[in-house]
């Protein structure tokens, strides 16, 4: 089946990371020459810089990744479960694809998508066995086609900012990667910043992305980052949160101070529960109900907990602030004042097929500016 497929994709999930199958995934993908999609929890299972890596699927996945799934004739799902944020409308998800589903949980087989070949196994063992029996494949044309879609959609350019002066999520995340040489472990909370982090941080270190996934728990980032730092004391650990989610476990700043744990906290402050606000903008005519929030003064708050706080209001201050945070011993809170109505694009509306994405168009932008 893999040898016969013309447009195969691998969808790698958290199972690959949990079974420590980084090398096996890479070897399998390279031998079969199959593009690799990593799910939200599968991010960093294969480096973003790997030539076969083509992004994250689903609700906030890039255009070319979702179109690749839409056009695929074979999906090899490894350690993933076809979550509703990945599939959108299931009946329109990967309509042309057969499915080889590898998962350790037998209950996942045929649950969302009926598998052509269900394999209940540990990801590492299964991938190694497949690689051993597989003949080398060549799907460069298919990969080239996906890459041409990627260039045509020019993803990064679409995350439009109305203001050139405010810090923007892409440069914040890119700078964290740059300053830490990609060695940081980044823990995200839940919301818009989580999707920006998933999409625009470059995942080059194995198992460097921690997020709450399907549990969707706001307030996760700060305590989880604390645990990560204690587990991996040598790595720089960044907690990325929104101004809404950080409030939900803000008391843990005291624990950071008390136990002397060094976690760098990036707060993307847009003055809203941003993801909910985005839905209200798209689906409820900008009726912003209960989403605007003033929040506290995060720098003074850091001070109150005995930690260093930095506020960043201008884009050119992003890098100096992150460098200062890294140079400072102990925990640091860096608050980035970002554009209040920045959106995560593209977006698949709930109940739609993942190939029907909402992208910010010039028209929409013009309407916004009115």
């Amino acid at each position, binding site marked *: 089946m893999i040898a016969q497929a013309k447009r195969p994709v691998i969808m790698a999930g958290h199972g690959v990371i949990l079974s420590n199958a980084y090398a096996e995934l890479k070897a399998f993908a390279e031998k079969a020459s199959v593009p690799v999609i990593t799910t939200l929890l599968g991010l960093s299972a294969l480096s973003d810089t790997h030539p076969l890596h083509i992004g994250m699927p689903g609700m906030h996945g890039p255009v070319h990744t979702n179109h690749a799934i839409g056009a695929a004739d074979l999906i090899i799902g490894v350690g993933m479960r076809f979550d509703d944020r990945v599939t959108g409308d299931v009946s329109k998800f990967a309509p042309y694809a057969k499915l080889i589903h590898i998962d350790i949980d037998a209950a996942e087989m*045929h*649950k969302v998508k009926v598998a052509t070949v269900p394999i209940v196994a540990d990801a590492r063992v299964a991938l190694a066995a497949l690689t051993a029996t597989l003949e080398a494949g060549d799907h460069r044309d298919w990969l080239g086609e996906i890459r041409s879609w990627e260039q045509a959609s020019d993803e990064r350019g679409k995350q439009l900012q109305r203001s050139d002066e405010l810090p923007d999520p892409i440069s914040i995340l890119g700078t964290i990667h740059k300053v830490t040489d990609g060695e940081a472990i980044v823990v995200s909370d839940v919301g818009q910043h989580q999707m920006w982090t998933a999409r625009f941080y470059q995942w080059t270190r194995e198992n460097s992305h921690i997020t709450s996934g399907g549990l969707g728990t706001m307030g996760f980032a700060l305590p989880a980052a604390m645990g990560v730092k204690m587990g991996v004391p040598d790595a720089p650990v960044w907690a990325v949160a929104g101004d809404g989610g950080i409030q939900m476990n803000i008391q843990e700043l005291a624990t950071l101070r008390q136990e002397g744990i060094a976690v760098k906290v990036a707060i993307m402050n847009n003055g809203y529960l941003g993801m909910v606000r985005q839905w209200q903008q798209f689906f409820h005519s900008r009726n912003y109900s209960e989403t605007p929030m003033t929040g506290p003064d995060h720098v003074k708050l850091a001070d109150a907990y005995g930690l260093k706080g930095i506020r960043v209001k201008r884009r050119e201050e992003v890098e100096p602030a992150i460098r200062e945070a890294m140079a400072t011993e102990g925990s640091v809170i860096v608050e980035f004042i970002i554009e209040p109505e920045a959106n995560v694009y593209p977006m698949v509306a709930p109940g739609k097929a993942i190939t029907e994405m909402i992208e910010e168009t010039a028209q929409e932008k013009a309407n916004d500016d009115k």
Partner: protein
Amino acid sequence: MTNNAVTSVRAHHTNAPQGTAKTHTLIISVVDRPGAVDRVVGVLRRRRSMLKSFALAPDTQPEVFRVTVQVQDAEVVIDHLVAQIRKIIDVQEVINVTAAQAVQLEIVLIQIATSTVQSADLIAAGQQAGATVVDTTPVAMTFEATGSPEEIDQVVAAFQSYPIHDIVRSGCVAMARLSSV
């Protein structure tokens, strides 16, 4: 939970071919720890399984209960159900046996009010249906019968012309047939 329960969309039913539901018998071995059987029942309940019968008793192994449950559903839905029950830590084993692979028996107790019937007629009718008398009082007689669920249905039917006071069925228990050693 009964056969008459109104069910809307149920888990995994989108994959189930229409009209393929049949009765499956599951034999579940579960360690007797507080809450363990609750978890099994919880899975059945949350997945809105169409329960036909449920029997629970100690297993031959110490500290283990054996649950025999009959569920009516399509094969694919039952496969998911089995996979989910197997995920409960206290569950040692789940076997899905069909009637052909297993011996399946059920007990029924039928109590007849005797004030208006001749005892001799009643006993004769009971014998013909394969039921034996296990208890008598001045006003009632209780019969017992053991058989497959279908046989039990027939026994119950045989008593319909008498003044039935109460009927209780044990629920089916099953044992896989050992066909080769």
